[in-house]
């Protein structure tokens, strides 16, 4: 079993929703409430050491509910190991999740991009504003209900 899965099942047994192993890749779905603690544990754990946050992706699963999700791709240089950490956000109208910018500072811009494109807000983010679109842009272009040619 992946060390990250073992760590989460030991420390956060209530939070783990699902673990999927597919051709050597591990994806863990967790509840969003204690995400920051989970990320910090994965980063600092001796057997995990996911010091590097490769990417954060915002997801729009429309028309499913919960509609929005956030996916974190982590990498451990120490163990040459990758995992995918997934969450689904409860609120379909005003999706919100805690920021992990204090755990990995690279999350700062990744989360701004997701806010810009998907309209997912990040609690505790140091500077949550649009990063790609003009500051006065209305709407969130990467949402599935956003028209391709703009509003």
């Amino acid at each position, binding site marked *: 079993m992946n060390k990250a899965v073992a760590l989460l099942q030991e420390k956060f047994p209530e939070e783990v929703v699902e673990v999927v192993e597919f051709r050597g890749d591990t994806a863990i779905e967790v509840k969003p409430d204690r995400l920051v603690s989970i990320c910090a544990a994965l980063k600092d754990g001796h057997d995990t050491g996911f010091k590097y946050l490769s990417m954060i992706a915002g997801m729009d699963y429309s028309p499913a509910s919960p509609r929005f999700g956030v996916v974190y791709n982590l990498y451990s240089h120490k163990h040459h190991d990758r995992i995918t950490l997934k969450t689904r956000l409860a609120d379909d109208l005003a999706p919100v999740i805690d920021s992990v910018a204090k755990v990995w500072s690279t999350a700062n811009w990744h989360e701004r991009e997701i806010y810009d494109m998907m309209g997912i807000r990040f609690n505790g983010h140091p500077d949550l504003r649009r990063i*790609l*679109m*003009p500051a006065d842009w209305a709407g969130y*272009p990467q949402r599935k209900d*956003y*028209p*391709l*040619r*703009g*509003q």
Partner: protein
Amino acid sequence: MGIEEHLGHNVLTTTLEKLVDWGRKNSLWPATFGLACCAIEMICTAANRWDIARFGMEAFRASPRQADVIIIAGTVVKKMMPAIQRVYDQMSEPKWVIAMGACATSGGIFDSYAVVQGIDKYLPVDVYVPGCPPRPEGLLYGILKLHEQILRDPFLTQRYKEGLQARREVAA
């Protein structure tokens, strides 16, 4: 040995307008402004194989205040549009605009919320160069077409300002 020998001690007469237009046509200074892959072709046009200096255009100006023509070379996103408008406004009259490539002409393949669907929604374009991207020969052909157009321009009118004003009134 020079051209003086053939001309002899003669007098050439022309109109001031023709002289000015001829001078303008042969010393168009482009604003240094590249946006996407078309800019690479524009740079090639300036390099030795195609040599834009043959048309008096080798002085790519980094300041729009010293430029006569702006070549919109590439995809214009809406976030970039205020900067382009500002560069264009800073150019002194008379000034010309070349829309280079499919994106600057019509938005090209980027039929999307983020991309301006043709620079002519904002700027008065004089010459459109099709292609994705156009080869340097294509850009040079467009430049020659602009030369023909400049030779026909009356040189003391406010044609460009009036044209821009008319477009703004239509848009408003």
